[in-house]
């Protein structure tokens, strides 16, 4: 009998701090599996952001640099320009990337930096206690939108994957989810394509992952997982929005 499913090598054999049912763990594993598949881990420099994702270096056996809140794409730009022979990715949440870091993601993407950005969208600020995020859905209650997000006052959820696909500097932009085995398989394919863009020097690649945050949504893990499919996938359409090299 052979082991057919095992922990990827680039993921450390440690317990994470993530809450039960949090999709960060699944997304970490997909990233690690893809790094292993392309044998990239040993030539990778990861760029961590601020939020629940900051402990990247505790879970991945990679060289990692921390970034100030929202600035990971600028930090990754500096890393990649200085070490173009390294594989460079950022891993950022929605508060980090789509609010405070809006300028950095737009311009790194628009310059066509040869990096991969992994964006985890869970419609809330996880680490600080579930405040309203730029991706919070209309009507969604959070700790700073206690009556539900009112679009007339608080605007609309930002669809980052679509937004970036409109920039000429972007080579690949896609959105995936990890709420079902089928979506996980698709997510892995998107992750692979994004990494191939960088490996082949074909430009800026971006994958948005829809993610559950059971604790801050006030839901059980299974209910939160279902919400991803029921509500998030409705607003944030899964798919590929740009694939310039048809990978």
């Amino acid at each position, binding site marked *: *009998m052979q082991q057919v499913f095992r922990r990827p090598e680039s*993921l450390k054999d440690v*317990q*994470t701090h993530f*809450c039960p049912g949090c999709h960060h763990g*699944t997304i970490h594993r997909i990233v690690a599996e893809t790094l292993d598949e392309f044998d990239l881990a040993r030539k990778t420099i990861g760029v961590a952001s601020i939020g629940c994702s900051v402990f990247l270096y505790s879970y991945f056996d990679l060289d990692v640099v921390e970034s100030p809140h929202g600035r990971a794409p600028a930090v990754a730009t500096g890393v990649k320009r200085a070490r173009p022979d390294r594989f460079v990715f950022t891993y950022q949440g929605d508060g980090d990337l789509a609010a405070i870091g809006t300028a950095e993601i737009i311009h790194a993407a628009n310059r066509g930096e040869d990096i991969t950005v992994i964006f985890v969208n869970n419609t809330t600020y996880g680490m600080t206690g579930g405040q309203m995020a730029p991706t919070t859905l209309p009507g969604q209650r959070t700790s700073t939108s206690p009556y539900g997000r009112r679009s007339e006052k608080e605007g609309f959820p930002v669809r980052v994957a679509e937004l970036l696909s409109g920039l000429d500097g972007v080579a690949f932009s896609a959105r995936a989810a990890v709420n*079902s*085995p089928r979506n*996980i398989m698709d997510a892995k394919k998107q992750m692979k394509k994004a990494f191939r863009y960088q490996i082949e020097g074909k430009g800026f690649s971006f994958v948005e992952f829809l993610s559950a945050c059971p604790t801050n949504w006030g839901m059980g893990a299974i209910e939160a*997982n279902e919400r991803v499919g029921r509500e998030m996938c409705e607003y944030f359409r899964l798919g590929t929005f740009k694939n310039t090299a048809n990978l």
Partner: protein
Amino acid sequence: MPTIEIDELRCKGCGLCTIACPKKLITLSEQINNHGYTPALFQETEIKCTGCALCAEMCPDVAIKVFK
């Protein structure tokens, strides 16, 4: 015979594997582990594990090994 092994110290009892298993062979234990979670429990009946690994794919904590 295909089978799985759940690391009950790593399991946080989220239950996502229980909905992933097409054969419904995984439930949550009533015992709590040393982190205070009720870990997943794999129990075959007359229905057997096929080693499809969907439980492991869904597990956010990489707590399931699959053998085939």
